[in-house]
């Protein structure tokens, strides 16, 4: 089962916690908003990804299954 990360751009308020917890995947643009690639998250990074999802203050980060 593979998963990918997705940002809800309306909910996102550029707190930047996702980039701090998951620098391997998430980069911040020049305005502080996360650039999240849509590729599958490497299995080794899944626990960190789940932590980043849980830590987002606005619940803007989602981990979803790729069909």
């Amino acid at each position: 089962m593979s998963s990918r990360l997705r940002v809800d751009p309306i909910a996102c308020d550029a707190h930047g916690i996702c980039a701090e917890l998951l620098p391997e995947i998430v980069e911040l643009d020049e305005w502080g908003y996360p650039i999240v690639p849509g590729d599958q998250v490497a299995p080794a990074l899944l626990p960190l990804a789940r932590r980043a999802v849980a830590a987002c203050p606005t619940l803007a980060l989602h981990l979803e299954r790729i069909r």
Partner: protein
Amino acid sequence: MSSVPPAGANRLLELAGGQSPVPFAAHQARYGPLPLSSYSGPRGPALLAETVERAHLSGRGGAGFPLAAKLRAVAATPRRPAYVVANGAEGEPASRKDRLLLSRVPHLVLDGAVLAADCVGASEVHLCVHRGALAPTVAAAVRERRDPVTVAVHEVPDGYVSSQETSLLNFLAGRRALPSTIPPLPAQRGLRGRPTLVSNVETLAHLALLARYGPRWFAEVGTAEAPGTFLATLAGAVREQGVREVPFGTPLTELLAAAGAVDLQAVLLGGYFGTWLSAGAARNLRLAPDALRLVGANLGAAVVLALPQGICGLGETLQIAEWLSGQRARQCGPCINGLPAIVDTLAALVSGRGGQRALRRLSELAGLVNGRGACRHPDGVVRLVGSALRAFEDDVAAHAAGAPCRALERSA
């Protein structure tokens, strides 16, 4: 006894020549009653969807999504009730086709909406129009009818993004007319969290005729991939501005000639959400989705805006981009920040101060903005500006070198 199908390309607009709406009695006299009985019973919805699929009827609101797929998606979502939202809000500033349909042949739109509601099992149709004279006209047309579903007419705010699908749903729910993130799709979770078909009023008008006369008649004009006609709004440097009904596959040059294009430099195809094409690029172009896709263009809401010689296309694009930036919903960071940055950089380029640096910055911003909002508004601005940089290459080179407008030179 069934009625005679419209001949040639004069389909939606056959009765639209007058100054006032075609009354229900005249509409019924011409087209016969709404053929609900042809699509009734347990197999009815599947039959209508099949008819729509065979005719390749796709959305006329700009996205061009196949109607059959939408109908099926809504019908298949188990949560009930379902709803139909008819989108006549026409946010694209230069477009006139939707208000023309609603003010002259509203019963075609209403027929299509009722047929769609019957197909997806909805008992409510919500018709959205811009504020003004349209709402009373359409409401009067509704009162002339006796439909098995309720039809409510709503006036929506003027903003550019207000007529987007999810904006309408938010507005109907009592919130601001601003977009929401997708997924979920309206077909699965729309109005009141229920499956909702959101369809442009022109699409529904085509459905009203297709359901009566069938896919074979529908395909008598147009192309194999894109049967039928579409409504184009001609604007800018043409002698005859306004709405024309056009078979798919018509050469763009033919349409421009018919409208009396004057001294053509370039065409903005698709309105503010569209792309620029130089007169050269427009030369052998047919107005059909596949042909347009090959040159990176899209019919969109079929606004055809002609730019004459002697006006700087980059300057026009700057004004449009500035307006579009002002219209952003201000919900998503990359768009809140990115669109003004694109406008400022384009302004620097056009003023001659920006140089190659401005071009590099525009490319960088395009990458930062595209696809990073909840809706396609920022993507549209990126596409518009990108197409301007290609279509007005010579002017770009001149401005980047700090020289004055070549467009102004050419007209001298």
